[in-house]
Protein backbone atom coordinates (compact mmCIF):
# COMPACT_ATOMS: atom_id res chain seq x y z
CA UNK A 1 0.00 0.00 0.00
CA UNK A 2 1.25 3.47 -0.82
CA UNK A 3 0.14 6.50 1.14
CA UNK A 4 0.86 9.89 -0.32
CA UNK A 5 -0.36 13.40 0.00
CA UNK A 6 -2.56 14.79 -2.73
CA UNK A 7 -2.05 18.43 -3.42
CA UNK A 8 -5.37 19.07 -5.05
CA UNK A 9 -8.90 17.86 -4.56
CA UNK A 10 -9.24 14.13 -5.28
CA UNK A 11 -11.27 12.84 -8.17
CA UNK A 12 -14.45 11.03 -7.33
CA UNK A 13 -14.22 7.32 -7.92
CA UNK A 14 -16.26 5.62 -10.60
CA UNK A 15 -18.29 4.05 -7.85
CA UNK A 16 -19.14 7.41 -6.31
CA UNK A 17 -19.99 8.90 -9.69
CA UNK A 18 -22.24 6.04 -10.69
CA UNK A 19 -24.39 6.43 -7.60
CA UNK A 20 -25.03 10.14 -8.09
CA UNK A 21 -28.71 10.63 -8.75
CA UNK A 22 -28.66 14.34 -9.41
CA UNK A 23 -26.08 16.86 -10.48
CA UNK A 24 -26.68 20.45 -9.44
CA UNK A 25 -24.84 23.50 -10.70
CA UNK A 26 -25.39 26.49 -8.46
CA UNK A 27 -23.93 29.88 -7.60
CA UNK A 28 -23.85 29.27 -3.86
CA UNK A 29 -23.78 26.16 -1.71
CA UNK A 30 -24.43 26.58 2.00
CA UNK A 31 -23.54 23.61 4.15
CA UNK A 32 -25.39 23.62 7.46
CA UNK A 33 -28.81 25.02 8.30
CA UNK A 34 -28.07 26.36 11.77
CA UNK A 35 -28.02 30.05 12.68
CA UNK A 36 -24.90 30.80 10.58
CA UNK A 37 -26.06 28.96 7.47
CA UNK A 38 -29.60 30.34 7.69
CA UNK A 39 -28.23 33.87 8.08
CA UNK A 40 -26.14 33.54 4.91
CA UNK A 41 -29.18 32.15 3.13
CA UNK A 42 -31.28 35.07 4.32
CA UNK A 43 -28.89 37.61 2.79
CA UNK A 44 -28.91 35.73 -0.51
CA UNK A 45 -32.67 35.15 -0.53
CA UNK A 46 -34.39 36.50 -3.64
CA UNK A 47 -31.18 37.76 -5.20
CA UNK A 48 -30.23 36.66 -8.71
CA UNK A 49 -27.81 34.07 -7.32
CA UNK A 50 -28.95 30.47 -7.14
CA UNK A 51 -28.56 29.01 -3.68
CA UNK A 52 -28.57 25.42 -2.46
CA UNK A 53 -28.75 24.90 1.30
CA UNK A 54 -27.89 21.42 2.53
CA UNK A 55 -28.65 20.42 6.11
CA UNK A 56 -28.37 17.00 7.70
CA UNK A 57 -31.41 17.35 9.97
CA UNK A 58 -35.05 17.07 9.02
CA UNK A 59 -35.79 20.53 10.40
CA UNK A 60 -33.76 23.65 9.75
CA UNK A 61 -32.34 25.54 12.71
CA UNK A 62 -29.34 23.62 13.98
CA UNK A 63 -29.10 23.96 17.73
CA UNK A 64 -31.90 26.54 17.77
CA UNK A 65 -34.60 23.90 17.47
CA UNK A 66 -33.85 22.69 20.99
CA UNK A 67 -33.23 26.04 22.60
CA UNK A 68 -36.26 26.66 24.75
CA UNK A 69 -34.71 29.50 26.74
CA UNK A 70 -35.12 33.16 25.91
CA UNK A 71 -32.42 34.76 23.77
CA UNK A 72 -30.14 37.41 25.14
CA UNK A 73 -28.86 40.17 22.95
CA UNK A 74 -30.43 43.11 21.20
CA UNK A 75 -33.79 43.61 19.60
CA UNK A 76 -32.55 43.34 16.01
CA UNK A 77 -30.91 40.06 17.01
CA UNK A 78 -33.99 38.23 18.26
CA UNK A 79 -33.48 39.02 21.93
CA UNK A 80 -36.41 38.20 24.16
CA UNK A 81 -37.55 35.34 21.92
CA UNK A 82 -36.97 31.63 22.31
CA UNK A 83 -34.52 29.78 20.05
CA UNK A 84 -36.96 27.26 18.57
CA UNK A 85 -39.33 30.06 17.57
CA UNK A 86 -36.54 31.80 15.68
CA UNK A 87 -35.77 28.51 13.89
CA UNK A 88 -39.41 28.10 12.86
CA UNK A 89 -39.62 31.66 11.58
CA UNK A 90 -36.42 31.33 9.53
CA UNK A 91 -37.40 27.96 8.18
CA UNK A 92 -40.66 29.33 6.85
CA UNK A 93 -39.02 32.49 5.53
CA UNK A 94 -36.30 30.62 3.63
CA UNK A 95 -38.77 28.16 2.14
CA UNK A 96 -40.35 31.12 0.32
CA UNK A 97 -37.13 32.33 -1.32
CA UNK A 98 -37.56 31.89 -5.07
CA UNK A 99 -33.85 31.32 -5.73
CA UNK A 100 -33.30 28.80 -2.99
CA UNK A 101 -33.35 25.05 -2.88
CA UNK A 102 -33.26 23.52 0.57
CA UNK A 103 -32.11 19.92 0.80
CA UNK A 104 -32.83 18.64 4.30
CA UNK A 105 -31.78 15.29 5.73
CA UNK A 106 -28.66 15.19 3.57
CA UNK A 107 -25.08 15.04 4.76
CA UNK A 108 -22.22 16.53 2.78
CA UNK A 109 -19.71 13.72 2.80
CA UNK A 110 -16.89 14.89 0.62
CA UNK A 111 -15.35 17.36 -1.76
CA UNK A 112 -14.07 16.13 -5.09
CA UNK A 113 -12.76 17.70 -8.27
CA UNK A 114 -16.15 17.01 -9.81
CA UNK A 115 -18.07 18.72 -7.02
CA UNK A 116 -19.41 18.41 -3.52
CA UNK A 117 -21.12 15.14 -2.67
CA UNK A 118 -24.20 15.20 -0.47
CA UNK A 119 -26.05 12.07 0.54
CA UNK A 120 -29.54 11.61 1.90
CA UNK A 121 -31.65 8.48 2.38
CA UNK A 122 -33.24 9.00 -1.01
CA UNK A 123 -30.59 10.53 -3.20
CA UNK A 124 -26.98 11.39 -3.84
CA UNK A 125 -26.26 14.88 -5.10
CA UNK A 126 -23.15 16.13 -6.83
CA UNK A 127 -23.18 19.89 -6.37
CA UNK A 128 -20.99 22.28 -8.32
CA UNK A 129 -20.99 25.68 -6.62
CA UNK A 130 -19.08 28.87 -7.39
CA UNK A 131 -19.18 29.99 -3.78
CA UNK A 132 -19.46 27.93 -0.62
CA UNK A 133 -20.45 28.84 2.93
CA UNK A 134 -19.43 26.16 5.39
CA UNK A 135 -21.43 26.42 8.57
CA UNK A 136 -21.05 22.93 9.97
CA UNK A 137 -21.03 23.96 13.62
CA UNK A 138 -19.37 21.89 16.29
CA UNK A 139 -19.59 18.59 18.07
CA UNK A 140 -19.62 17.84 21.75
CA UNK A 141 -16.52 16.83 23.63
CA UNK A 142 -16.50 13.58 25.54
CA UNK A 143 -14.69 12.93 28.79
CA UNK A 144 -12.57 10.01 29.91
CA UNK A 145 -13.67 8.30 33.12
CA UNK A 146 -14.38 4.78 34.28
CA UNK A 147 -17.38 3.13 32.59
CA UNK A 148 -18.13 6.19 30.49
CA UNK A 149 -19.71 3.91 27.90
CA UNK A 150 -22.55 2.83 30.19
CA UNK A 151 -26.00 3.77 28.92
CA UNK A 152 -27.07 6.89 30.75
CA UNK A 153 -23.87 8.80 29.99
CA UNK A 154 -24.48 11.23 27.17
CA UNK A 155 -23.67 14.65 25.82
CA UNK A 156 -25.70 17.54 27.17
CA UNK A 157 -26.63 18.57 23.64
CA UNK A 158 -27.83 15.06 22.87
CA UNK A 159 -29.98 15.09 25.98
CA UNK A 160 -31.35 18.47 24.93
CA UNK A 161 -32.39 17.01 21.57
CA UNK A 162 -34.10 14.05 23.25
CA UNK A 163 -35.93 16.30 25.66
CA UNK A 164 -36.75 19.46 23.76
CA UNK A 165 -37.15 18.16 20.22
CA UNK A 166 -38.58 14.68 20.80
CA UNK A 167 -40.19 15.13 24.20
CA UNK A 168 -38.28 12.29 25.85
CA UNK A 169 -36.95 12.88 29.35
CA UNK A 170 -33.36 11.58 29.34
CA UNK A 171 -33.38 10.55 33.00
CA UNK A 172 -34.85 11.22 36.40
CA UNK A 173 -31.81 11.80 38.62
CA UNK A 174 -29.05 13.58 36.81
CA UNK A 175 -25.48 14.68 37.36
CA UNK A 176 -24.26 17.38 34.99
CA UNK A 177 -20.52 17.65 34.35
CA UNK A 178 -19.37 21.14 33.42
CA UNK A 179 -20.71 24.54 34.50
CA UNK A 180 -20.36 26.46 31.27
CA UNK A 181 -23.57 27.91 29.83
CA UNK A 182 -24.46 24.59 28.20
CA UNK A 183 -24.22 22.74 31.52
CA UNK A 184 -26.17 25.41 33.39
CA UNK A 185 -28.90 25.71 30.75
CA UNK A 186 -29.41 21.95 30.38
CA UNK A 187 -29.72 21.73 34.18
CA UNK A 188 -32.49 24.32 34.15
CA UNK A 189 -34.27 22.56 31.29
CA UNK A 190 -34.05 19.26 33.15
CA UNK A 191 -35.82 20.91 36.09
CA UNK A 192 -38.46 22.13 33.66
CA UNK A 193 -38.87 18.59 32.34
CA UNK A 194 -39.42 17.32 35.88
CA UNK A 195 -36.04 15.67 36.43
CA UNK A 196 -33.99 16.11 39.56
CA UNK A 197 -30.52 17.57 39.06
CA UNK A 198 -28.39 16.15 41.87
CA UNK A 199 -25.46 18.46 41.18
CA UNK A 200 -23.40 20.24 38.58
CA UNK A 201 -19.69 19.47 38.96
CA UNK A 202 -17.02 21.84 37.72
CA UNK A 203 -13.29 21.08 37.82
CA UNK A 204 -12.33 24.76 37.87
CA UNK A 205 -12.58 26.69 41.13
CA UNK A 206 -15.28 28.93 39.64
CA UNK A 207 -18.51 28.62 37.67
CA UNK A 208 -17.78 28.75 33.93
CA UNK A 209 -21.03 30.14 32.56
CA UNK A 210 -22.99 33.33 33.04
CA UNK A 211 -24.15 34.41 36.48
CA UNK A 212 -27.82 34.57 35.46
CA UNK A 213 -27.84 30.96 34.23
CA UNK A 214 -26.23 29.77 37.47
CA UNK A 215 -28.68 31.82 39.57
CA UNK A 216 -31.64 30.18 37.78
CA UNK A 217 -30.70 26.70 38.95
CA UNK A 218 -29.35 27.75 42.35
CA UNK A 219 -32.72 29.16 43.32
CA UNK A 220 -34.23 25.71 42.85
CA UNK A 221 -31.54 24.25 45.10
CA UNK A 222 -29.24 22.65 42.52
CA UNK A 223 -25.72 22.55 44.02
CA UNK A 224 -22.89 23.71 41.76
CA UNK A 225 -19.78 21.96 43.06
CA UNK A 226 -16.70 23.83 41.87
CA UNK A 227 -13.28 22.13 42.11
CA UNK A 228 -15.05 18.80 41.66
CA UNK A 229 -14.77 16.18 38.98
CA UNK A 230 -16.33 12.88 38.03
CA UNK A 231 -14.18 9.80 38.58
CA UNK A 232 -16.50 7.21 37.15
CA UNK A 233 -19.95 5.72 36.99
CA UNK A 234 -21.20 2.33 38.12
CA UNK A 235 -24.18 0.22 37.24
CA UNK A 236 -25.04 -3.15 35.82
CA UNK A 237 -27.03 -2.31 32.71
CA UNK A 238 -27.05 1.45 32.95
CA UNK A 239 -25.78 4.21 35.19
CA UNK A 240 -26.83 3.71 38.81
CA UNK A 241 -24.33 5.93 40.55
CA UNK A 242 -21.62 8.44 39.80
CA UNK A 243 -18.47 8.86 41.85
CA UNK A 244 -17.31 12.42 42.25
CA UNK A 245 -14.40 13.95 44.16
CA UNK A 246 -12.76 17.24 44.94
CA UNK A 247 -9.75 18.32 42.87
CA UNK A 248 -6.97 20.67 43.90
CA UNK A 249 -5.64 23.61 41.87
CA UNK A 250 -3.46 21.20 39.84
CA UNK A 251 -6.51 19.11 38.95
CA UNK A 252 -5.34 16.25 41.19
CA UNK A 253 -8.02 14.35 43.05
CA UNK A 254 -7.95 15.09 46.78
CA UNK A 255 -7.75 11.70 48.48
CA UNK A 256 -10.61 10.86 50.81
CA UNK A 257 -13.09 13.24 49.14
CA UNK A 258 -14.57 10.62 46.81
CA UNK A 259 -18.31 10.14 47.22
CA UNK A 260 -21.10 8.40 45.45
CA UNK A 261 -24.12 10.21 44.02
CA UNK A 262 -27.18 8.15 43.14
CA UNK A 263 -28.09 9.08 39.57
CA UNK A 264 -29.40 7.36 36.47
CA UNK A 265 -27.99 9.87 34.01
CA UNK A 266 -24.72 11.75 33.60
CA UNK A 267 -24.66 14.60 31.10
CA UNK A 268 -21.37 15.88 29.77
CA UNK A 269 -21.17 19.58 29.08
CA UNK A 270 -17.42 19.83 28.72
CA UNK A 271 -17.06 21.97 25.66
CA UNK A 272 -17.41 21.77 21.91
CA UNK A 273 -14.98 21.17 19.07
CA UNK A 274 -15.36 22.97 15.73
CA UNK A 275 -16.49 20.62 12.98
CA UNK A 276 -13.70 21.36 10.50
CA UNK A 277 -13.55 18.15 8.44
CA UNK A 278 -15.25 19.62 5.41
CA UNK A 279 -13.42 22.94 5.36
CA UNK A 280 -10.14 21.04 5.63
CA UNK A 281 -11.14 18.85 2.70
CA UNK A 282 -11.52 22.02 0.71
CA UNK A 283 -7.88 22.64 1.58
CA UNK A 284 -8.40 25.63 3.86
CA UNK A 285 -5.58 26.51 6.20
CA UNK A 286 -6.30 25.88 9.88
CA UNK A 287 -4.66 26.68 13.16
CA UNK A 288 -4.95 25.21 16.63
CA UNK A 289 -6.32 27.98 18.88
CA UNK A 290 -7.55 26.59 22.22
CA UNK A 291 -9.51 29.76 23.10
CA UNK A 292 -11.60 29.34 19.94
CA UNK A 293 -12.27 25.64 20.58
CA UNK A 294 -9.30 23.87 18.97
CA UNK A 295 -8.47 23.54 15.31
CA UNK A 296 -10.20 26.36 13.41
CA UNK A 297 -10.04 27.60 9.82
CA UNK A 298 -8.14 30.80 9.18
CA UNK A 299 -10.22 33.47 7.51
CA UNK A 300 -10.40 37.12 6.55
CA UNK A 301 -12.52 39.49 8.68
CA UNK A 302 -15.11 38.91 5.92
CA UNK A 303 -15.15 35.17 6.72
CA UNK A 304 -13.38 33.96 3.57
CA UNK A 305 -10.94 31.10 4.14
CA UNK A 306 -7.53 30.64 2.52
CA UNK A 307 -9.36 28.91 -0.34
CA UNK A 308 -10.88 31.56 -2.55
CA UNK A 309 -14.69 31.66 -2.54
CA UNK A 310 -14.95 29.27 0.39
CA UNK A 311 -16.41 31.00 3.45
CA UNK A 312 -17.03 29.93 7.03
CA UNK A 313 -19.43 31.13 9.74
CA UNK A 314 -20.59 30.09 13.17
CA UNK A 315 -19.19 27.65 15.69
CA UNK A 316 -16.96 26.06 13.10
CA UNK A 317 -15.00 29.33 12.99
CA UNK A 318 -14.87 29.65 16.78
CA UNK A 319 -17.00 28.23 19.57
CA UNK A 320 -19.30 31.08 20.49
CA UNK A 321 -23.08 31.33 20.45
CA UNK A 322 -26.05 31.75 18.15
CA UNK A 323 -26.09 35.55 18.00
CA UNK A 324 -22.54 35.82 16.74
CA UNK A 325 -23.17 32.88 14.41
CA UNK A 326 -26.02 34.86 12.81
CA UNK A 327 -23.80 37.94 12.41
CA UNK A 328 -20.99 35.92 10.85
CA UNK A 329 -23.45 34.23 8.53
CA UNK A 330 -24.77 37.58 7.35
CA UNK A 331 -21.21 38.83 6.84
CA UNK A 332 -20.38 35.76 4.72
CA UNK A 333 -23.57 36.31 2.71
CA UNK A 334 -22.70 39.93 1.95
CA UNK A 335 -19.14 38.96 1.12
CA UNK A 336 -20.48 36.62 -1.55
CA UNK A 337 -22.81 39.29 -2.92
CA UNK A 338 -19.90 41.72 -3.08
CA UNK A 339 -17.69 39.24 -4.90
CA UNK A 340 -20.42 38.17 -7.29
CA UNK A 341 -22.09 41.50 -7.94
CA UNK A 342 -19.37 44.05 -7.32
CA UNK A 343 -18.64 46.45 -4.50
CA UNK A 344 -22.04 48.10 -4.22
CA UNK A 345 -22.30 50.78 -1.58
CA UNK A 346 -25.34 49.14 -0.01
CA UNK A 347 -23.63 45.79 0.53
CA UNK A 348 -20.40 47.33 1.77
CA UNK A 349 -22.21 49.51 4.30
CA UNK A 350 -24.27 46.63 5.61
CA UNK A 351 -21.22 44.45 5.97
CA UNK A 352 -19.27 47.12 7.84
CA UNK A 353 -22.21 47.63 10.21
CA UNK A 354 -22.28 43.90 10.90
CA UNK A 355 -18.56 43.88 11.63
CA UNK A 356 -19.11 46.68 14.12
CA UNK A 357 -21.98 44.78 15.71
CA UNK A 358 -19.78 41.71 16.08
CA UNK A 359 -17.08 43.82 17.66
CA UNK A 360 -19.56 45.33 20.11
CA UNK A 361 -20.88 41.90 21.11
CA UNK A 362 -17.42 40.63 21.79
CA UNK A 363 -16.53 43.62 23.93
CA UNK A 364 -18.22 42.02 26.96
CA UNK A 365 -15.96 40.60 29.69
CA UNK A 366 -17.64 37.22 29.12
CA UNK A 367 -16.20 37.17 25.57
CA UNK A 368 -12.65 37.76 26.73
CA UNK A 369 -11.30 34.49 25.33
CA UNK A 370 -12.71 35.12 21.87
CA UNK A 371 -11.47 38.69 21.86
CA UNK A 372 -8.00 37.62 22.95
CA UNK A 373 -7.59 35.02 20.26
CA UNK A 374 -9.72 36.12 17.32
CA UNK A 375 -6.76 37.91 15.72
CA UNK A 376 -4.83 34.63 15.68
CA UNK A 377 -7.42 33.14 13.37
CA UNK A 378 -7.25 35.95 10.82
CA UNK A 379 -5.45 35.58 7.53
CA UNK A 380 -2.80 38.19 6.75
CA UNK A 381 -4.35 41.50 5.77
CA UNK A 382 -6.01 41.40 2.39
CA UNK A 383 -6.73 37.71 2.77
CA UNK A 384 -6.73 35.39 -0.18
CA UNK A 385 -5.95 38.07 -2.72
CA UNK A 386 -2.91 39.44 -0.90
Amino acid at each position, binding site marked *: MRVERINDLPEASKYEKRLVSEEITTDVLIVGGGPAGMASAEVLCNTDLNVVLVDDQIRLGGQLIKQTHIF*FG*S*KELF*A*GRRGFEIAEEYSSKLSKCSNMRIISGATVVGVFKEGVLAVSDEAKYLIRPKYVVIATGAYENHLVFENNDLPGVMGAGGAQTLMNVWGVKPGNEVLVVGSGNVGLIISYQLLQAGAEVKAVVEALPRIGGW*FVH*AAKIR*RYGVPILTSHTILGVNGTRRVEEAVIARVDENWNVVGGTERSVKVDTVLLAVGLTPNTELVRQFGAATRYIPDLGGLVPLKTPYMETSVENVFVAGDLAAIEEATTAFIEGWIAGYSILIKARGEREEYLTKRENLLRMLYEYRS*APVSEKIRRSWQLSLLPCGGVNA
Partner: protein
Amino acid sequence: MVDLDTLARMGYVPSEERLRRGPVAIYECVEEIPCNVCVFSCPFNAVTKNKITDLPKIDFSKCTGCGVCVGRCPGLAIFVVDVSREGDVGYVTLPHELLPAPSKGSEVLLLDREGREVGRGTVTKVYRDKITRSWVVTLSVPKDLVMVVRAIRVIK
Protein backbone atom coordinates in the same frame (compact mmCIF):
# COMPACT_ATOMS: atom_id res chain seq x y z
CA MET B 1 -24.81 33.92 44.71
CA VAL B 2 -25.42 37.61 44.97
CA ASP B 3 -26.12 39.37 48.29
CA LEU B 4 -27.90 42.61 49.14
CA ASP B 5 -24.69 44.57 49.66
CA THR B 6 -23.54 43.73 46.16
CA LEU B 7 -26.91 44.72 44.71
CA ALA B 8 -26.84 47.98 46.64
CA ARG B 9 -23.32 48.74 45.45
CA MET B 10 -24.45 48.26 41.86
CA GLY B 11 -27.29 50.70 42.31
CA TYR B 12 -30.00 48.05 42.19
CA VAL B 13 -31.57 48.78 45.58
CA PRO B 14 -33.96 51.76 45.68
CA SER B 15 -34.04 54.18 48.62
CA GLU B 16 -36.30 53.53 51.60
CA GLU B 17 -38.37 56.48 50.50
CA ARG B 18 -38.85 55.04 47.00
CA LEU B 19 -39.68 51.59 48.39
CA ARG B 20 -42.38 53.11 50.59
CA ARG B 21 -43.94 54.82 47.59
CA GLY B 22 -44.96 51.66 45.74
CA PRO B 23 -43.81 48.65 43.71
CA VAL B 24 -40.39 48.88 42.09
CA ALA B 25 -38.15 46.62 40.01
CA ILE B 26 -35.10 44.95 41.53
CA TYR B 27 -32.49 43.95 38.96
CA GLU B 28 -30.13 41.12 39.86
CA CYS B 29 -28.07 41.47 36.70
CA VAL B 30 -24.55 41.69 38.10
CA GLU B 31 -22.41 40.57 35.17
CA GLU B 32 -21.71 42.53 32.01
CA ILE B 33 -23.31 40.38 29.31
CA PRO B 34 -24.36 41.49 25.81
CA CYS B 35 -28.10 41.95 26.27
CA ASN B 36 -30.57 44.82 26.33
CA VAL B 37 -33.97 43.18 26.47
CA CYS B 38 -34.88 45.17 29.59
CA VAL B 39 -34.02 48.45 27.88
CA PHE B 40 -36.42 47.95 24.98
CA SER B 41 -39.07 46.21 27.10
CA CYS B 42 -39.59 49.04 29.58
CA PRO B 43 -42.68 51.10 28.66
CA PHE B 44 -41.42 54.01 30.80
CA ASN B 45 -37.81 54.24 29.55
CA ALA B 46 -36.65 53.69 33.09
CA VAL B 47 -33.83 51.36 32.07
CA THR B 48 -30.82 52.46 30.05
CA LYS B 49 -27.52 51.14 28.80
CA ASN B 50 -24.87 53.04 26.86
CA LYS B 51 -23.32 49.93 25.39
CA ILE B 52 -25.08 46.61 25.03
CA THR B 53 -22.51 45.08 27.38
CA ASP B 54 -23.02 47.63 30.18
CA LEU B 55 -24.97 46.80 33.32
CA PRO B 56 -28.50 48.22 33.14
CA LYS B 57 -29.07 51.50 34.93
CA ILE B 58 -32.49 51.87 36.54
CA ASP B 59 -34.11 55.24 37.13
CA PHE B 60 -36.28 54.46 40.16
CA SER B 61 -38.21 57.68 39.72
CA LYS B 62 -39.45 56.46 36.33
CA CYS B 63 -39.93 52.79 37.27
CA THR B 64 -43.55 52.11 38.18
CA GLY B 65 -43.00 48.50 39.17
CA CYS B 66 -45.30 47.42 36.34
CA GLY B 67 -43.35 44.17 35.94
CA VAL B 68 -43.26 43.96 32.13
CA CYS B 69 -39.48 43.38 32.25
CA VAL B 70 -39.92 40.48 34.70
CA GLY B 71 -41.43 38.19 32.08
CA ARG B 72 -39.04 39.32 29.34
CA CYS B 73 -35.58 39.13 30.93
CA PRO B 74 -33.73 36.12 29.41
CA GLY B 75 -31.72 35.80 32.61
CA LEU B 76 -34.87 35.68 34.78
CA ALA B 77 -32.99 38.23 36.83
CA ILE B 78 -35.65 40.89 37.41
CA PHE B 79 -38.13 41.01 40.28
CA VAL B 80 -40.62 43.55 41.55
CA VAL B 81 -41.00 44.19 45.26
CA ASP B 82 -43.74 46.14 46.98
CA VAL B 83 -43.53 47.10 50.65
CA SER B 84 -45.72 50.17 50.37
CA ARG B 85 -48.73 48.85 52.23
CA GLU B 86 -49.30 49.08 55.98
CA GLY B 87 -48.83 45.91 57.98
CA ASP B 88 -46.59 42.87 57.73
CA VAL B 89 -47.41 41.81 54.19
CA GLY B 90 -45.19 42.59 51.22
CA TYR B 91 -45.36 41.53 47.58
CA VAL B 92 -42.83 39.96 45.27
CA THR B 93 -43.31 39.51 41.52
CA LEU B 94 -41.12 36.90 39.86
CA PRO B 95 -40.80 34.94 36.59
CA HIS B 96 -41.80 31.29 36.62
CA GLU B 97 -41.25 28.63 33.93
CA LEU B 98 -41.95 25.34 35.71
CA LEU B 99 -45.02 23.14 35.77
CA PRO B 100 -47.46 22.84 37.42
CA ALA B 101 -48.91 26.22 36.59
CA PRO B 102 -49.29 28.58 39.50
CA SER B 103 -52.87 29.69 40.05
CA LYS B 104 -54.29 32.76 41.69
CA GLY B 105 -55.14 32.27 45.34
CA SER B 106 -53.06 29.15 45.79
CA GLU B 107 -50.46 28.72 48.48
CA VAL B 108 -46.87 28.10 47.32
CA LEU B 109 -43.51 27.36 48.93
CA LEU B 110 -41.15 30.31 48.92
CA LEU B 111 -37.51 29.74 47.95
CA ASP B 112 -34.51 31.99 48.44
CA ARG B 113 -31.57 32.47 46.05
CA GLU B 114 -30.07 29.13 47.16
CA GLY B 115 -33.29 27.19 46.86
CA ARG B 116 -33.93 27.03 50.61
CA GLU B 117 -37.54 27.05 51.72
CA VAL B 118 -38.11 30.22 53.68
CA GLY B 119 -41.87 30.12 54.15
CA ARG B 120 -45.19 30.07 52.40
CA GLY B 121 -46.89 32.71 50.33
CA THR B 122 -50.06 33.20 48.33
CA VAL B 123 -50.34 33.92 44.62
CA THR B 124 -52.20 37.21 44.28
CA LYS B 125 -51.80 37.66 40.55
CA VAL B 126 -50.55 35.54 37.67
CA TYR B 127 -50.36 36.07 33.91
CA ARG B 128 -48.34 34.84 30.95
CA ASP B 129 -46.12 37.31 29.15
CA LYS B 130 -47.47 37.69 25.63
CA ILE B 131 -44.05 37.29 23.96
CA THR B 132 -42.11 34.81 26.08
CA ARG B 133 -45.17 32.96 27.46
CA SER B 134 -43.43 32.85 30.86
CA TRP B 135 -45.62 33.14 33.92
CA VAL B 136 -45.25 36.34 35.86
CA VAL B 137 -46.36 35.63 39.41
CA THR B 138 -47.09 38.10 42.18
CA LEU B 139 -47.05 36.71 45.70
CA SER B 140 -47.97 38.03 49.08
CA VAL B 141 -45.14 37.20 51.47
CA PRO B 142 -44.00 38.26 54.93
CA LYS B 143 -42.71 41.80 54.43
CA ASP B 144 -39.21 41.00 55.67
CA LEU B 145 -38.83 38.40 52.92
CA VAL B 146 -39.33 40.59 49.85
CA MET B 147 -35.58 40.76 49.21
CA VAL B 148 -35.17 37.07 50.02
CA VAL B 149 -37.82 35.22 47.99
CA ARG B 150 -36.65 34.62 44.43
CA ALA B 151 -38.50 31.45 43.34
CA ILE B 152 -41.50 29.37 44.23
CA ARG B 153 -42.44 25.74 44.32
CA VAL B 154 -46.05 25.16 43.43
CA ILE B 155 -47.64 22.64 45.80
CA LYS B 156 -49.26 19.88 43.76
